């Protein structure tokens, strides 16, 4: 890639390569089509476990989770207390910091797992799960500007789940606030690297994916229209961007995972309990009351598709010695590979041992087994669930192998790109040699 003076990276959370192609084919995204003529929309791999907090951590660091220690939106302590990892748990330097140290100016807006905001040479605004905008903005002097522009962190997913109509209104408001802020930053032009994240595409996936399919029977016509309207607006944003960028400004956009239709939620803790791997000492107070596990348990699961063996070194209630833990893991893997859905067909596409997926100093806190499901099966981990397979209100789920990458002016890749490749690629654009411990390689 040619050296450029500046780079703009647009994060389109969960906007899959397949969906992008379909929307172009449907004629809904003419600007995306024009851009794809100036480069190439390529399919990219996400990370395991395939969830935004982990994927964008890999984006920021160029590393696999074994080197930054975050494996999901929720983790358990040794004593089975639940906690939500944030940027303080991200045990690695990020590209924001590397560029800042070189005196380059960074604007990083709305990227998951950047809260609490680290100190950068420029501005950083935390993404999903930041408790409030004032707490998410660094330096605080940027807050009045964001308020003036109507920038908001995210829709309220709790309200969205209660009412799709509420979601539809709020989602557009949030999206428009982001577009205004993006245009403002493009205009301001003080940055060298601008990374701007849109969560709204992911929200569309979770709450409305069923309307992506024109052939879906019984789909509400108004919701279908909304779906098409939203992606037309997204395309409008890309058009504004395309018109404003100069030749010396590199343009990259990417999604962190794909989306597919969710058919069944698969309650892995129920499944483990049915097979005698998980026992409760008392009725759990709620779905995530892992303190209710009996020391006789051998394994438990966390979302999405993470299984942990209760080894005595790693867990306070753990009783398994390493030999028994290893044997139990092989038994569980064999059973998972045989697991079939309610209508037949495999549930697990890949069942992986942690050392096959991760490497680095934080391997010991990784799940012992990581599962990539077949499309349609979304792994859940409630402790109060009575059935392995059930259905819920969400109609979309993440996929590993269908993320999207676009680099303007670039066609043909020597290998299949994956998210950790982005950080070293960006460093190269600025003429910086990527640190040797990055797992990704420049594209």
């Amino acid at each position, binding site marked *: 890639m040619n050296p450029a003076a500046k780079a703009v990276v647009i994060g389109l959370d969960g906007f899959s390569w397949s969906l992008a192609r379909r929307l172009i084919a449907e004629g809904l995204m003419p600007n995306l089509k024009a851009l794809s003529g100036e480069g190439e929309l390529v399919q990219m791999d996400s990370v395991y476990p395939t969830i935004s907090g982990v994927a964008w951590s890999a984006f920021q660091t160029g590393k696999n989770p074994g080197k930054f220690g975050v494996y999901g939106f929720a983790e358990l302590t040794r004593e089975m207390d*639940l906690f*939500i990892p944030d940027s303080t748990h991200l045990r690695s330097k990020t590209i924001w910091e590397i560029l800042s140290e070189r005196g380059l100016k960074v604007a990083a807006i709305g990227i998951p797992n950047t809260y609490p905001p680290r100190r950068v040479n420029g501005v950083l605004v935390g993404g*999903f799960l930041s*408790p409030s905008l*004032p707490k998410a903005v660094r330096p605080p002097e940027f807050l009045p500007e964001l*308020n003036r522009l109507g920038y908001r962190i995210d829709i309220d997913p*709790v309200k969205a789940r209660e009412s799709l109509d509420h979601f539809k209104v709020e989602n557009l408001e949030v999206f428009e606030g982001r577009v205004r802020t993006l245009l403002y930053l493009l205009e301001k032009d003080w940055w060298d690297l601008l990374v701007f994240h849109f969560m709204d595409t992911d929200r569309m996936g979770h709450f409305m994916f069923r309307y992506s399919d024109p052939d879906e029977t019984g789909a509400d016509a108004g919701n279908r229209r909304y779906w098409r309207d939203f992606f037309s607006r997204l395309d409008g944003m890309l058009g504004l961007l395309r018109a404003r960028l100069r030749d010396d400004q590199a343009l990259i956009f990417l999604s962190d995972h794909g989306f597919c239709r969710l058919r069944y939620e698969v309650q892995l803790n129920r499944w483990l309990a049915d097979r005698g791997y998980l026992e409760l000492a008392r009725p759990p107070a709620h779905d995530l009351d892992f303190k209710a596990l009996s020391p006789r348990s051998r394994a438990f699961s966390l979302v999405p598709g993470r299984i942990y063996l209760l080894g005595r070194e790693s867990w306070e209630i753990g009783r398994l010695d390493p030999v028994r833990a290893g044997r139990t893991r092989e038994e569980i893997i064999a059973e998972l590979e045989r697991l079939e859905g309610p209508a037949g067909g495999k549930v697990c596409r890949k069942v992986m041992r942690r050392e096959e997926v991760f490497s680095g100093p934080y391997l010991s806190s990784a799940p012992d087994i990581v599962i990539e499901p077949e499309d349609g099966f*979304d792994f*859940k981990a409630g402790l109060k669930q009575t059935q392995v397979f059930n259905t819920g209100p969400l109609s979309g789920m993440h996929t590993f192998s269908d993320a999207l990458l676009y680099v303007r002016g670039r066609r043909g890749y020597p290998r299949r790109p994956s998210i950790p490749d982005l950080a070293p690629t960006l460093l190269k654009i600025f003429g910086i040699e990527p640190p040797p411990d990055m797992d990704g390689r420049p594209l």
Partner: protein
Amino acid sequence: MNRLDELESKSVYVIREARAQFGKIALLWSVGKDSTTLLWLARKAFLGEVPFPVLHIDTGFKFPEMYRFRDEFARKWKLELLVSRNEEAIAAGMGPDGAEKLACCNALKTEALKIGIRRHGFRALLLGIRRDEHGIRAKERYFSPRDEDFKWDYQNQPPELWDQYNTRSDDDSHLRVHPLLHWTEVDIWNYIKREEIPITDLYRSRNGKRFRSIGCVPCCAPVDSDASTIDEIIAELKSTRTSERSGRAQDKEAAYTMQKLRAMGYM
């Protein structure tokens, strides 16, 4: 003036100021040590007789000792005690069942408070919160506006420089006044000791356990402690490093984060 006199005099000033500016005010009394100290200061500010109502938000889940204490001292101190409950939610069986704690707090505390404020038309409320209690409270001011939806608008917050308390309030909002904002947990206990303020026995050790913070029975856990006198409690606090609210079920911010993750299907 010693430290306690200074703390007292500043609080008394804020209480009198709130009364003079707003007239129609109430003191929110949870029966805990802080709001009981606040009540004590209000009595001092007006020479023994509190000239405005004392509002108690009753979730129906408080400790029996708290109800007894409330009624006993409401009588002794001749308080105009108002009790506000969200009867509808209580009748519907709302309770802190599992992960629904936040919904329970919203219904039985926030909604009940709204009901009380609406019924009586209070323009300002005196609250016994302290800056050292909790992360999010560190940003509170002595006078903090809340809008119609009870949302706290950081942006619309008037600056408080020196003693220029900004006491203007829009018509549609009520103001929260925090006369104890500058006190610490140890200050409260030192003052309780000096003034011999009555507090419920829940704070004193029984069988090796005591409560550092009290509220609803299902959501409060006692801490290990042998401190059964005020002196022992003060000595214990000076040597402890765990937070006062560690016995509380879940902090609201963390609970809300969980709720968001659950709504997205990530839990």
